């Protein structure tokens, strides 16, 4: 009975496919060339019945397992998808022909039917200057740098907290701002641009609006993370695509070159993003996503490298620990890596030198992980802040206020910056929350959408970020 049923289903399926394929040809005359139209004029390129029937070949023998419907009926499915064009075919074909003949474009000036966008800032990087209470947050949605006061706390029913100061606009040389740093003495703000620009602009404490930066540095790559050694007056940046840490003089500007580079296979930098310094112990920490490839460098690693084809690989996320003075193709001192670490797309980090703790914004893990600065290998975090009460969702950065014993977290997933006691552990509610949008408004998580797809089965728009 089962076999007979399969035969019947198979025969029926073939019939449906043939009818669908032939039907497509019959009901879509417009895809055939119109003589003289100059459009679809290549007769040998038009769909043919034979090609459609070839799509039936994947059918399994009758005694075997049944094929999935979808692949076997592929052309029929596409034909059905395109069927909606049929009714307007002749009219629009004339429009096409007219447009082509007149050598003039027809401009469609109507506004979009719908726009999907988030009108609220999406917090990304964060920096705190405890003495003045100055809190700087970057916004990767509207491309702004926002200043708040560290004691700001958005009331539950308020739409948002207004920033004290906004820097943003085409003059600022700031766009996808992945990193931010406040100079504790001058209150200048350093901004790292990721992905789309290679400028590192620096703004005075009075800069406001669409202003040119007070100075800017042209970095040899798109910045993912940034840290400053105030004692040595050195500026560290990670370059994710080129798997490098570049070290500049803190006062570098224009086309100044790095004073040293940490790069090469031995470094085990694999998708480096966050960077944090422990000047007390002379250590440099780098978070790595694990998206790896091999690079070809020149002899003294002074130029941007090129990717070696076919060397891509997915490695475990990690934190590599280097000497603060490390340069060249130097192996890390140790690596924090493995399933116990719970690292999952680790992003920006911060170090508490006094307590000897490393804080990690663990983006896809929706957590903040706290390790000992002496940790190595597949270790469990000393503390994990995570859970629904914590409000942590896609954390992109952390900052430490050691004066007031507080931990700041920016949550790319929910329009908030949240603050916790420095020793928080588990599912802890934040002490205060700064919101950039209504609490009940969904965060679209759209950032730098370079493409769009359409899932015609589910009638869904697909947006890669």
């Amino acid at each position, binding site marked *: 009975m089962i076999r007979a049923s399969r035969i019947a289903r198979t025969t029926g399926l073939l019939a449906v496919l043939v009818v669908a394929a032939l039907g497509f040809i019959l009901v879509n005359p417009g895809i055939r060339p119109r003589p003289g139209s100059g459009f679809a004029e290549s007769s040998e390129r038009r769909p043919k019945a034979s090609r459609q029937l070839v799509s039936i070949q994947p059918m399994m023998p009758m005694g075997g397992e049944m094929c999935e419907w979808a692949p076997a009926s*592929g052309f029929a*499915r596409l034909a059905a998808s395109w069927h909606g064009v049929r009714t307007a075919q002749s009219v629009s074909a004339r429009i096409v022909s007219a*447009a082509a003949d007149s050598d003039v474009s027809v401009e*469609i000036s109507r506004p*979009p039917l719908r726009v999907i*966008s988030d009108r609220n800032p999406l917090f990304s990087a964060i920096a705190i200057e405890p003495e003045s209470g100055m809190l700087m947050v970057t916004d990767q949605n509207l491309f702004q740098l926002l200043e708040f006061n560290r004691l700001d706390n958005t009331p539950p029913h308020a739409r948002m907290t207004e920033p004290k100061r906004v820097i943003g606009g085409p003059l600022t040389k700031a766009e996808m701002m992945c990193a931010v740093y406040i100079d504790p003495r001058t209150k200048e703000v350093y901004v790292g641009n990721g992905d789309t620009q290679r400028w590192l602009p620096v703004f005075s404490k009075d800069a406001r609006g669409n202003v040119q930066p007070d100075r800017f540095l042209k970095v040899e790559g798109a910045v993912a993370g940034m840290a400053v050694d105030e004692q040595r007056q050195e500026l560290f940046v990670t370059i994710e695509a080129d798997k490098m840490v570049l070290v500049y003089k803190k006062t570098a500007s224009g086309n100044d070159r790095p004073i040293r580079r940490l790069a090469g296979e031995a470094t085990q930098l694999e998708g480096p993003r966050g960077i944090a310094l422990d000047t007390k112990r002379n250590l440099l920490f780098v978070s790595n996503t694990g998206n790896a490839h091999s690079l070809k460098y020149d002899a003294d690693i002074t130029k941007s490298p090129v990717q070696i084809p076919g060397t891509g690989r997915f490695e475990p996320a990690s934190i590599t620990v280097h000497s603060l003075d490390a340069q060249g193709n130097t192996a890390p001192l140790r690596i924090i890596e493995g399933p116990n670490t719970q690292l999952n797309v680790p992003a920006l980090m911060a170090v508490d030198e006094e307590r000897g703790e490393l804080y990690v914004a663990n983006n896809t893990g929706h957590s903040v992980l706290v390790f000992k600065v002496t940790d190595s290998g597949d270790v469990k975090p000393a503390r994990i802040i995570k859970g629904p009460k914590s409000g942590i969702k896609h954390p992109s950065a952390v900052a430490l206020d050691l004066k007031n014993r507080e931990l700041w977290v920016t949550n790319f997933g929910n329009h908030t910056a949240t603050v916790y006691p420095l020793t928080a552990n588990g599912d802890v509610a934040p002490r205060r929350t700064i919101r950039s949008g209504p609490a009940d408004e969904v965060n679209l998580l759209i950032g730098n959408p370079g493409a769009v797809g359409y899932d*015609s089965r589910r009638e869904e728009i697909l947006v*890669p970020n």
Partner: protein
Amino acid sequence: MHDIDYDEIHDEFTVPQFMAQAILTFRGGANGEEPPIRVIQGPLTQLRQPARVTVDPLHNEIFVPQESDNEILVFPREANGNVAPIRILKGPPDSRGLGPSALAVDPVHNLLIVATNGPRGERTESFADNRIRIYNRTDHGNAKPRGIIGGPKSGFYELGGPMAVHPPKGVFFLPVGGPGPDTDFVGVWSVHDNGDVPPRWTIGPAPGLFRSVHGVAVDPKSKSVFVTDKDLNAVMTFSFPEIF
């Protein structure tokens, strides 16, 4: 992720993974932290910085343009693991003759539509290097294109964003960056166009409409065109009944 292509026949979507030199295919309804069902990655693949991908669901092939290598790699759609390309369309050495930054496949007319841009980041007054080159779908090696679209009338100031094709009408949709504010647009050309041809239709340019138009997809059923803008962080849906 710099691109995405949904395959309606097999209910899958495919994305390029730039950092790990991989092409990932997920089931159509994938959600959350779900692993891909297939991964093309490894030394045989020759993948380097894959930024765009196009799936031909009828002929079961995946096309990956490699701008810096002046080539287009073609893999079997069901390739998984360390798999060599089944063919490579490659421009002449030391030439920007191909340098593909984006592409689309018209499986009905058997054509490969390839955007080739000038040097990255160079937004000059010259349109000389920006072209659409149209090849036969199965071309390989240093093949001559069937047609080349480009020139002042075409207005290809900056190309490179993912494009879309609508085979029943033999047209493709191309995001075009302009020289300044309010000059970006989406243009529609015929797959049979050749030479310095203006678009048949355009969406924009218009004041305040686009800042950095980048990706295009279409839904023939609703007669809609979807457009992303990287500066606006937005996805816009336009009704476009004239074309469907």
